[in-house]
């Protein structure tokens, strides 16, 4: 089954990381991604720019409406994701718990809805 693992954390807090801690975090993500690629479960994954760079788009009565920022103001924001293809929810949970971001924020595990 495929799952999208959304990495959620307080981006203001992430922004305050100093260079050294930031580099350490990136290195941990590198180790994680390598391990998962080796296991053959990784189907994709990217880091996202903060919500300050988000543009929200909606169409109402045929008109495209834009707003600056995320679609909802929340305490934690999605900062990145991994797409994994693994056996079941137990394995998805186990992978999610290994994402370095799980130790500071939280990971939302969303099964992909096959169409």
């Amino acid at each position, binding site marked *: 089954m495929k*799952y999208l693992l959304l990495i959620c954390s307080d981006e203001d807090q992430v922004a305050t990381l100093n260079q050294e801690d930031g580099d350490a975090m990136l290195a941990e993500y590198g180790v994680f991604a390598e391990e998962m690629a080796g296991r053959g479960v990784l189907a994709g994954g990217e880091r996202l720019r903060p919500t300050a760079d988000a543009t929200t788009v909606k169409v109402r009565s045929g008109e495209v409406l834009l707003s600056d920022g995320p679609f909802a103001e929340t305490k934690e924001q999605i900062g990145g994701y991994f797409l994994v293809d693994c*056996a*079941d*929810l*137990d394995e*998805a*949970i186990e992978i999610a718990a290994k994402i370095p971001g799980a130790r500071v924020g939280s990971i939302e*595990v969303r*099964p992909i*809805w096959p169409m």
Partner: protein
Amino acid sequence: MADVTTPFEAEVTEVVHREWGRVVATLIRRTGDWDLAEDSAQEAFVLAVERWRRDGIPASPGGWLTATALNRAIDRLRRAAMGRQKLRDLAAMMPGPDTPDPDESGIVDDRLRLIFTCCHPALAPDARVALTLRSLAGLTTSEIARAFLVTDATMAKRLVRAKAKIAHTGIPYRVPPAHLLAERTTGVLAVIYLLFNEGYEASTGADLVRAGLCDEATRLGRTLTELMPDEPEVLGLLALLLFHDSRRAGRVDASGDLVPLDEQDRTRWNAAAISEAVTVLDRALWLGRPGPYQTQAAIAACHATAADAAATDWAQIAGLYGELGRMTGSPVVELNRAVAVAMADGPQAGLRLVDGLADSGALRDYRLLAATQADLLRRLGRRDEAAEAYRRAIDLAGNERERRFLTRRLSEVAAPARP
């Protein structure tokens, strides 16, 4: 379950209760469809009543029911089969040699798969309880709704949502592999204990249906000991439930008021349940891997096996609470230790521990902290302080019965006339 009117119906009711979980568990494994499994099991049980009335109950009612339910399920799928996919599903389920067991643990009883799936930590706690009662214990949605004081519609929705989550998110239908087993077993035990406590406390009002939850929990606990006979904590939980349950008849008086342990009529305790509990606990302790349920059961054993309240070995109980506190780190356990210390070494020693807990702020607004303080102050003859603590406890009381008990105590210590 149905009202019992004849010996035949009584026996069928017993078979339903015993076999429901096994039939549903196997059907879920074979069909992968929880609703289909329950509906087919239901049909098989209805057929069984007709058939068995005529032919008698077969030697292996469980096997008959499972085979019949599986045939019903295949019929239903055949009627519904339209695409190739459905037909392929059908072929996979056709009776034949059992599919090899994919579990690393090597345990094949489907009921164990069922209970671990019902109690999966990705489900909401109230959904775990409801699903266990529906799928494994065979209670109807209305019975569960009544027991948890919600409407049928609310309970139906809760069950539908839980089953949908299992199907959509890929919660595996299996006994967890070794690296998850201990943690998940703890989760299953927590669900059974929660279920028991719902019935035992009936904290939002006395109700017979809710009291039936104690029986369901004990039954599930017993099933689990059959399925995991070498897990000391599983045995520990069953022993604990049996000890608690043995006191059921003695813990409320004729008017429904709570009777404190030291005032209970011990001849009303269930001696058979106590002796079973002692046997189960012995076996657990013999396995040599202590845990919180075994320790709680050992404490309950100290009470249950004392000839009378005065003969209770409070020093040992205080020691066991100390052990339990180290395992759990719980301030509630520390409060219980204080009560035991008060019994062993006098109210002053107990009050010192309780006051320490109160100062730490860990149990602020916990009703039993105030009630314990009140009781110890009363025994020390500090009536004014006791009255104040009783009033605080009454404000925090969880149910009417408890409030009545505390009010009675308050009237014993409060000054007779107030301006």
